[in-house]
């Protein structure tokens, strides 16, 4: 992680993480995937949304970890939770039960309609498929949460024209697909990357560049996107991380690396 020359003092990953945390302002409850989503959700609790209820698929409701958990089942998630429930209850009563505002997901591949592949990569004819971890909770998180946020690094490997496999549906092939399939939630509302933020166009549901991080150009984002990326009429620039945000983020990460 090198600092970007244009924005000394923080990295592009930190821009991504801080903006992902900001996207949780105002949310009440968040179903948190491990990795970048967990970083964002914990940072949100330390900054814009101290009351945010973190929910992990391991069964913890209202976890308040003081360091970044390495896995969704770290002991501290359970010890600091308001309630720990069995995994089937988590998926049936809480997630499918419509109790969760925001689902926060990562992805290996995403397409222009915010559909996600985390299953297999096509490596070309005569080559075996490349294996990814699989679905985890994502298909039902994306379907049942009130709305979905996504966070991943921008590259043509991850932002692809056509997914090799649809693990988790975002907006399908466009507006109306979610309704047709009876999905309760509104689906992905933002994809936060290390270059900027994409949001589905209200009319077409196609991911559209709406904000750039400081020092990033539209051309850089288009070059890192595997399809002809739509760009909003007015593209905003995200606020640089505040000193408080950076301090909180770095403290969380440092604590996560401490031996126990």
């Amino acid at each position, binding site marked *: 992680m090198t600092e970007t020359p244009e924005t000394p003092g923080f990295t592009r990953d930190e821009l991504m993480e801080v903006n992902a945390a900001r996207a949780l302002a105002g949310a009440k409850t968040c179903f948190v995937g491990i990795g970048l989503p967990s970083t964002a959700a914990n940072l949100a609790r330390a900054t814009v949304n101290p009351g945010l209820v973190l929910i992990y698929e*391991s*069964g913890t409701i209202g976890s308040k970890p003081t360091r970044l958990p390495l896995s969704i*089942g770290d002991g501290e998630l*359970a010890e600091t939770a308001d309630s720990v429930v069995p995994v089937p209850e988590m998926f049936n009563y809480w997630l*499918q039960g419509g109790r969760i505002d925001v689902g926060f997901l990562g992805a290996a591949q995403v397409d222009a309609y915010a559909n996600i592949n985390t299953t297999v990569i096509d490596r070309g004819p005569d080559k075996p498929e490349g294996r990814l*971890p699989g679905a*985890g909770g994502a298909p*039902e998180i994306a379907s049942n949460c009130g709305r979905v946020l996504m966070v991943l690094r921008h590259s043509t490997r991850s932002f692809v024209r056509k997914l090799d496999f649809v693990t988790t549906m975002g907006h399908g092939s466009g507006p109306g697909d979610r309704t047709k399939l009876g999905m309760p939630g509104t689906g992905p509302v933002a994809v936060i990357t290390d270059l900027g933020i994409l949001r589905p166009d209200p009319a077409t549901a196609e991911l559209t560049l709406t904000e750039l991080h400081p020092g990033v150009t539209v051309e850089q984002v288009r070059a890192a996107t595997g399809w002809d990326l739509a760009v909003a009429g007015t593209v905003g620039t995200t606020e640089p991380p505040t000193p408080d945000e950076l301090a909180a983020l770095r403290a969380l990460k440092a604590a996560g690396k401490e031996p126990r």
Partner: protein
Amino acid sequence: MADIRSLHDAVADLIHDGDTVAMEGFTHLIPYAAAHEVIRQGITDLTLVRMTPDVIYDQLIGAGLVRKLVFSWGGNPGVGSLHRFRDAVENGWPRPLELDEHSHAGMANRYVAGASKLPFAVLRGYRGSDIPTRTDTISTVTCPFTGEELAAVAALNPDVTVIHAQQADRAGNVQLWGLTGVQKEAALAARRVLVTVEEIVEELEPRPGGIVLPTWVIDAVSVVPGGAHPSYASGYSVRDNAFYQAWDPIARNRDAFTRWIEENVRTRTGRTEKAGAR
């Protein structure tokens, strides 16, 4: 009724070649020691079931004992890929690995159906996903009241479920607490149940968040302190995150993996395993 017996004998009696075996534990209380005993005894042609295959199944797959994997997320949590799992799927090494792949919600409900002795469970799941195209254990049912079409998933009823718990009493009643995942469902869905525990206590003291499995749903209890390492047992140990990170380079390389299994599993016993595995 559960017999309290050695891990060697319990595994030898309860787990057989060709069995469908679930070793559950959601990050917490993963029964590593029992898996290592399976490796030492070379019990093979297994169908392994687990929501999150994790390093424990990476080891069993790499050891060549697994024919098929039923799962929903196969990674080394917080670290990266399961390289033995990938090598088996992508290259068939050391043998091809058949997959039955689901989402977490689907797997959890398959266990619920199994524990409830129902042939299937219903969920609002897999919508818009390609996952159902690759398995015959996902179908649909139509609600007879509303007409809504919902996903149906086939019940899971393993031949054997293996879990690790904190405590048993002398009668073989077991208590686990902390993150208890799908362990109750996995145990009650199975035909046979083996529980490894940190210790035997005179009396199980009810714990907040504790679940009790009565002795009459368990076949064998084996006392294996540290038997969840590098996973952990809340109240007894913490997760050995360093081991999970150290596993990555070991598992990337077939020879390094084989050597590790030889040195840390095959030539050890349940008793001496923990100290050496770090």
